[in-house]
């Protein structure tokens, strides 16, 4: 069989980079919490609102929320600026929601931006987009980013069902952030 030499048209695999991640390793008391919501997703706004109340009940000093509205243009630039300000103003953050392709990409990018400021952060995605979210984190050099996976789809579920999911997954979000109970800290 005759052959010919060609140049491989693909890029070589990029070496995996895992930037440092950060954990709270302490109770929530007196910490400043941040939550990133997305105007696109009614379900996440409801869960985030519920989690805000739960965080306050668990003793955080404050909860700052940033709702994102865009990816490019003035709105996108404002969103990224607000995320940067959020990262500076809080001790940890919860970032959602990845439940479409581009919104997962931007949720992960915003979580990475917060982690780059050495804040504990958890990115929240739905099951359908979990692999995509982890891939994006890896490609952004934060392969160890904490990712909380919620059921899919969230949209079209009644509020009561969403609040059940909220209650079920809130402790998992805290666990990924490294929140410890007072007794455990004192032990």
């Amino acid at each position, binding site marked *: 069989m005759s052959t010919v*030499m*060609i*140049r491989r048209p*693909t890029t070589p695999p*990029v070496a995996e980079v895992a930037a440092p991640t950060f954990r709270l390793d302490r109770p929530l008391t007196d910490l400043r919490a941040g939550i990133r919501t997305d105007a696109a997703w009614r379900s996440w706004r409801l869960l985030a609102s519920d989690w805000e109340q739960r965080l306050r009940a668990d003793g955080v000093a404050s909860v700052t929320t940033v709702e994102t*509205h865009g990816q*490019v*243009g003035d709105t996108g630039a404002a969103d990224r600026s607000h995320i940067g300000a959020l990262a500076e103003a809080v001790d940890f953050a919860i970032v959602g929601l990845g439940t479409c*392709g581009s919104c*997962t990409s931007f949720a992960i990018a915003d979580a990475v931006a917060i982690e780059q400021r050495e804040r504990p952060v958890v990115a929240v995605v739905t099951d359908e987009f979990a692999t995509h979210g982890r891939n994006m984190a890896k490609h952004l050099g934060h392969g160890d980013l904490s990712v909380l996976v919620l059921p899919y789809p969230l949209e079209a579920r009644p509020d009561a069902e969403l609040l059940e999911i909220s209650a079920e997954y809130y402790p998992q979000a805290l666990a990924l952030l490294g929140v410890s109970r007072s007794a455990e800290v004192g032990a």
Partner: protein
Amino acid sequence: MTLTGAQVEVPADPRALYELSLIEQWGDGAPVLPPTDAAIEALLAYTPDPPDHVVGVLPPQYGVATVELVAANAAMAGVQPGAFPIVLAALEAILVPEWNAFGLTTTTSSVFPMLIMNGPSRDDLGIDYRAGCMGGAAGRGSMTIGRAVSLCLRNIGGQRAGETSRTVFGQPARFGMCFGEWEERSPWPSLAQRRGLPTDLDVVTVHGGKGTFPLADIHNDDPRGLLFLLAKSMAYPLANMYLGNADNGEVVLAVNPMWAERFGAAFPEMTDLQAFLHEHAWQPLDLWPAANRDILVSKGRVGSRNRVFLTAHPDQIVPVVCGGLGSLHAVALPSFGESAMQSVAARTLTSGAR
């Protein structure tokens, strides 16, 4: 000229090479040509950039796109050497942050870079801008330039449906889409001119388009009446532009030359045409069910008299003259929304020799 890409020994038989490309996932499912050194060097001869020059880092997997690697993909697509600078210009446009390749390569949407070319080389390079320009005319430039960009997104950027790309349906343009503007039949300045670029350069404009949305009419001879219907049709209630911000994204309206002549007589200035289209590209809030209405209200999308405009500004509606002389048709290229159209002039070594 020194090439540094990894060399692979492959069968010279075209069918065997095709089979191998499928196994190695080098392609798009259609046969590819072998990216030999001779083929790559022929392409490189038309760009002033050296082979190791980095065009950019392509999402979603952030592969480094060197000129040589882009040339390897262009060679596989069958790009004519003189058209290679158009491929590079298209990639440069895609990599402008406001085009939002980061979002568009990963979205569930069907959106893909649609290339619109202006400039003196349209005929020489086989860029289709007359009958069948969006598919079927079979010009070499139109069929290979768009495909080369698509291959770069796959092979360098790592975009693959169902994996890194979450596109639900995709669209035919994901094989590559490139068409020209019929500048000579346009009553207005070309798209490239309107975007501030000179007429003596080959310019590629990249639009994040969701698909080709066909529009037709045979009953209305009044330009304003017809434009009213075009505007209303573009403002369909499930357009992406109604999902988010009105400020971001453009809708391209491809107009056949016969209609363009009629519209040009009524609106000699492009800005007046765009203002008229914008004025009518809205739907009444009551058109949407309650759940959608609530969102549109909360996003501040509802204007006076409960009108929900497709775009915030007239210049977000972008007419382009192209297509055959059948005076019945137009095509809208709806926007992803969160993407700003970009135009880049090709930098060509006219001698074709370094």
